[in-house]
């Protein structure tokens, strides 16, 4: 009845307004399809069926607002965004029974527009990881090849969209957690400027890096949802006071004269041949569309990964102190002192990757090591940011691959933290600099796995990313490909 591979938010809205389908039918069709695909993909931790159907009936009663494209549209929400009355776990044992008592600002904004929350998507525990394998709730499988990871940490949101379970989903991005899974799943994903979207109600990981964003098959759908969730919020002192443009106004524009920089470090050895070919083809497409593309250098790229892992882990070690087994979350059994409540609840409640980050962060901030690690990393961050500031004086966009490789195999990197961390080398710089960045479908490897091209712009200039990505989408066909759900025997 409804096939998300053949629709976008606008076409679904037309069907709802013209009563070709009711909101209830749309929601039921969504869950029917999810029932059929979840056994292969496992994109969701929690489904919200009962409440969603109730909301659908209320909307059918009230009538879909013809002026509100998002009215009655089912969305997936990453499980580190708190949803009042709907279990929110951050994919961690320590929060596996946590019921939020308030909504994240983004959820209040979406609720006001009558979107429907289909469920909470799987992720790496506390968003720490690049494969969704650190989830307490099982692995998510890549719909293009079920033996591959969906990327992470927003792997559930990406796989749900790519599998056609939802039309769009919210993700979060601290070091690439929207863009890398978007690339691995052949969909669009945008991390807006730091501060563009309120972090109120986002479970904190690295507070100076975290940002909520959108993942969808079409660029217009992400523009529509980003319009809805952006804006200043008094609950988040770091949210930007800047006006929010209508991001859909950037669509269907000419990109003649657009100046694009390609850092040579982003195409270096370590980047897979198929990825290099796809990015070169994307560059040729942009040139054909009238953009000028020049090679530049971002000399501190190599140091962005170590700087990021110190900064993000330090912030995480501080943010995760709140999980103490006292006020909410998991509390260890048979503990007889207050300190052992803390120690045992945390040791039993957190998974290994979260513990590694807490340990690295606590080490980097501890007496005697602060200057050599945390402060040094924060100084290198200044240099990374300065590199970008200088580039954006001359260029509109920075272009490169989103990830050095297509999706890797389940279990392939999980035992080697440093190798896993290096997969983030191309996405981390945008978080350190606080600039907006997106991954756009740009081709396939010889094995049929999706490849993404990354576009970055100066702070608060998401519109230029949308403009270029949309022009690219109109002249390519990668976003229309449908995953095969192959493999999955093991």
């Amino acid at each position: 009845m409804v096939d998300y591979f053949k629709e976008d938010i606008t076409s679904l809205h037309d069907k709802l307004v013209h009563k070709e389908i009711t909101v209830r039918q749309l929601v039921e069709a969504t869950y029917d399809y999810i029932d059929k695909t979840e056994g292969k993909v496992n994109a969701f931790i929690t489904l919200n069926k009962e409440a969603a159907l109730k909301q659908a009936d209320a909307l059918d009663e009230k009538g879909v607002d013809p002026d509100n494209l998002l009215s009655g549209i089912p969305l997936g929400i990453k499980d580190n965004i708190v949803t009042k009355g709907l279990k929110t776990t951050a994919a961690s044992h320590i929060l596996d029974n946590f019921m939020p008592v308030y909504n994240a600002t983004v959820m209040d904004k979406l609720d006001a527009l009558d979107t429907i929350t289909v469920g909470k998507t799987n992720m790496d525990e506390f968003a720490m990881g690049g494969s969704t394998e650190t989830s307490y709730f099982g692995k998510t499988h890549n719909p293009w090849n079920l033996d591959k990871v969906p990327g992470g940490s927003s792997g559930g949101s990406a796989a749900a969209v790519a599998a056609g379970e939802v039309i769009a989903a919210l993700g979060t991005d601290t070091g690439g957690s929207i863009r890398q899974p978007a690339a691995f799943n052949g969909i669009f994903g945008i991390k807006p400027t730091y501060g563009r979207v309120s972090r109120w109600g986002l479970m904190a990981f690295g507070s100076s890096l975290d940002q909520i964003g959108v993942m969808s098959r079409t660029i217009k759908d992400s523009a529509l949802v980003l319009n809805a969730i952006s804006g200043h919020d008094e609950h988040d002192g770091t949210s930007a006071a800047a006006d929010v443009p209508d991001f859909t106004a950037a669509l269907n524009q000419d990109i003649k004269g657009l100046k694009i920089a390609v850092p040579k470090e982003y195409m270096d050895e370590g980047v897979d041949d198929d990825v290099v070919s796809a990015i070169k083809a994307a560059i040729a497409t942009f040139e054909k569309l009238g953009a000028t593309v020049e090679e530049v250098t971002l000399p501190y790229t190599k140091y962005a990964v170590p700087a990021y892992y110190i900064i993000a882990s330090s912030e995480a070690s501080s943010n995760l102190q709140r999980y103490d087994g006292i006020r909410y979350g998991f509390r260890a059994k048979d503990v007889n002192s207050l300190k052992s409540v803390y120690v045992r609840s945390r040791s039993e409640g957190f998974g290994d990757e979260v513990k590694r980050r807490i340990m690295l962060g606590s080490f980097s901030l501890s007496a005697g090591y602060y200057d050599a690690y945390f402060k040094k990393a924060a100084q290198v961050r200044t240099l990374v940011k300065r590199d970008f500031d200088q580039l954006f004086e001359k260029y509109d966009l920075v272009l490169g691959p989103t990830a050095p490789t297509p999706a890797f195999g389940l279990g392939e990197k999980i035992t080697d933290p440093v190798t896993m961390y290096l997969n983030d080398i191309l996405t981390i710089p945008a978080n350190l600099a606080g600039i907006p960045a997106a991954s756009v479908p740009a081709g396939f490897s010889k094995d049929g796995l999706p490849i993404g091209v990354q576009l970055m712009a100066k702070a608060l200039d998401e519109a230029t990313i949308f403009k270029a990505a949309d022009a690219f989408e109109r002249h390519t066909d990668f976003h229309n490909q449908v995953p095969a759900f192959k493999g999955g025997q093991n």
Partner: protein
Amino acid sequence: MISKEQVTHVADLARLEFDEAQLNNFTTQLDKIVDFVDQLNEVDTTGIEPTTHVTSAVNVFRDDVPQKGEGRAALLKNVPEERDGLIRVPAIIDKEED
């Protein structure tokens, strides 16, 4: 080189504990990670100001007016152990305190 003693010390700071096998594993892994991040020493950062946030905001103030919270009943729903509307914890002063 990170030692097991350092790892145990940092674990205590972070309110985590590891058994012997985990301790060995974490020491090896943290040593590799610290070795990896040590490449930052190749960068000359003399005179470079650290960046700890990327917004231009300095301090954000609001008026100190009371605001309605979620209420005790709602907040207590997530509490692991409660009694008479209060959060229950082991005795803070206890002979068994370690």
